[in-house]
């Protein structure tokens, strides 16, 4: 028997989106999905290396939060499961794919790899390979916005930072330390927990005395919300509210998105612990299928429109692979470059 938490009810009618918004959200989720499927293919073909953590199933979280922000202006901090966050903030698929191939044209010049995607231009503060270490960095970026506004008198400094991390990570000290500081100083930040029920092979309930993560906000006097992480409109609505609070100087929000990863922890994971019943239950909640059904039902798109988007995205992903294949390796002469700021 699969024990599942009751997902909070969301009334899609409350979200009222336009056709254009619908298309944008759909397109972003499909980009995430197709990109990751292509990564699996390329990994097995020996084109990318190391640990590769795919995001399939969790797309509604990245799209729902990041499309509610001002990508390129607001700051975003991710984990090792960072490809799709990078895409949602607008790092070109070509540059992400090239990074995974270890090429000079990659967003981290081939020095970072799958778990270390960065883009100063898109204000992606990084993929962080160690659990929890991105949370303080994101908190520092949020502090910086407050500092610019209050110390340097910069009225424009209303940027919000989003920090993404998993359920397992919420048992790490940096999570609690930063929740405390963010609440204490009312920092403009969203702590977005992607609760996919598992930390590699550790079931969430086996790792925490209080599985309802959003409740952990309350001891810091911080807003904490849970949301159906398979429903892009639900996530987007919650994110919009949290962003509005943050921009207004009302401080941080802890958002717990109930979601699921459709693949193993990484491409090296045999994924033997998760039950078939559990997987099937969650596959049935596929956020992309759910959202396309909604768009059609609400007359916000015709099936042909969605098909056309799928084809367009497939072409973008195929082009990204070709770009990565055609790109040069980093020059050995530049092995020492980027160690220090002057290089």
């Amino acid at each position: 028997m699969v024990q599942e938490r009751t997902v909070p009810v969301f009334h899609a009618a409350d979200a009222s989106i336009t056709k254009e918004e619908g298309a944008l959200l759909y397109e972003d989720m499909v980009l995430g999905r197709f990109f990751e499927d292509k990564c699996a293919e390329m990994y097995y073909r020996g084109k990318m290396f190391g640990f590769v953590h795919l995001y399939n199933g969790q797309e509604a979280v990245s799209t729902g939060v990041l499309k509610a922000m001002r990508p390129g202006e607001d700051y975003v901090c991710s984990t090792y499961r960072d490809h799709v966050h990078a895409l949602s903030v607008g790092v070109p698929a070509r540059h992400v794919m090239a990074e995974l191939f270890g090429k000079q044209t990659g967003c981290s010049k081939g020095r970072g790899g799958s778990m270390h995607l960065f883009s100063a231009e898109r204000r992606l503060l990084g993929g962080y390979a160690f659990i929890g270490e991105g949370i303080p960095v994101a908190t520092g970026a949020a502090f910086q916005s407050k500092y610019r506004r209050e110390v340097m008198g910069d009225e424009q400094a209303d940027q919000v930072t989003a920090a993404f991390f998993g359920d397992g990570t919420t048992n790490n000290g940096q999570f609690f330390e930063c929740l405390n500081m963010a609440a204490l100083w009312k920092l403009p930040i969203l702590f977005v927990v992607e609760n996919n029920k598992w930390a590699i092979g550790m079931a969430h309930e086996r790792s925490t005395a209080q599985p309802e993560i959003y409740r952990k906000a309350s001891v810091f006097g911080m807003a904490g919300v849970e949301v159906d992480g398979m429903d892009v409109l639900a996530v987007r609505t919650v994110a919009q509210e949290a962003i509005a609070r943050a921009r207004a100087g009302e401080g941080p929000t802890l958002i717990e998105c109930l979601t699921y990863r459709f693949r193993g922890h990484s491409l090296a994971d045999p994924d033997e612990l998760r039950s078939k019943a559990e997987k099937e239950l969650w596959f049935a909640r596929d956020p992309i299928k759910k959202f396309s059904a909604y768009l059609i039902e609400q007359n916000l798109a015709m099936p042909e429109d969605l098909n056309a988007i799928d084809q367009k995205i497939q072409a973008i992903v195929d082009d990204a692979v070709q770009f990565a294949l055609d790109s040069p390796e980093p020059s050995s002469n530049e092995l020492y470059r980027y160690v220090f700021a002057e290089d």
Partner: protein
Amino acid sequence: MAETLLFNALRAAIDEEMAKDPTVLVMGEDVGHYGGSYKVTKDLYQKYGELRLLDTPIAENSFTGMAVGAAMTGLRPIIEGMNMGFLLLAFNQIANNAGMLRYTSGGNFKIPMVIRGPGGVGRQLGAEHSQRLEAYFQAVPGLKIVACSTPYNAKGLLKSAIRDDNPVLFFEHVLLYNLKENLPDDEYYLPLDKAEVVREGSDVTILTYSRMRHHVIQALKTLEKEGYDPEVIDLLSLKPLDFETIGASIRKTHRVIVVEECMRTGGIGAEIVASISDRLFDELDAPVIRLSSQDIPTPYNGTLESLTIVQPAQIVEAVQKIVALKV
């Protein structure tokens, strides 16, 4: 500035840089209202406000990571380790993020931050408060490591560390905060990668840093009386090592003694000896002598503690021994 205590020299460095640049700020435990554990930021919060002298909760890894995030987004944070040993809890943020992130990001971000505070063996502070983290951190790529030893170099080096666009680990020593020296009235900066020739000489090169500089100076009294003429170099920069200055001296004296407070195994001296062997082996007329702390947790007992670190008499003996060796 007239006669200045070392902690006030550091304070002046921070004050001058904060006055000049609104992106410079200090974060750490008790750096604001309390003024820092050794008073390096005393009363600065009254001048610059609580956000620029940010009293953080006791959360070393997280406030260090916050400084990384603030540095990546354009501020120039200085963090204070209340005692540098506490930054063992921030090892991850210092190594993975401060040190390596510029590289892993392929140059997307730079991390202009200073990580400073009291280190070294004090007077019977016990093992945990008597650490020499410089040895632990020297293997981290992307970090610069500096150790000050006088009010003059403390001020000039700290100002340069704050201006540097890279993460700088800046070691002060618990027993040197009350050293006094006349400082120049005019503003000055000292380069982060240059050693200081404390005494010119011809017999032997003594390489040292931080508090051990002062043990070497004590040993000099006896040595000079006995007619020895050692050259004394304070490294100041522990990473990178200033091999221009070190090399020039060794080419002159052909004999080297390293005097350090860190432990022998994997210490700064170990790295120096290996580098000398790589670069200057042919110049040596005698094996390099390494005087380091014992490879043990620093004992609380005062007698045992003084046996653990290098004493001036040992430096005298080492000079006598190495100069007597004829080839």
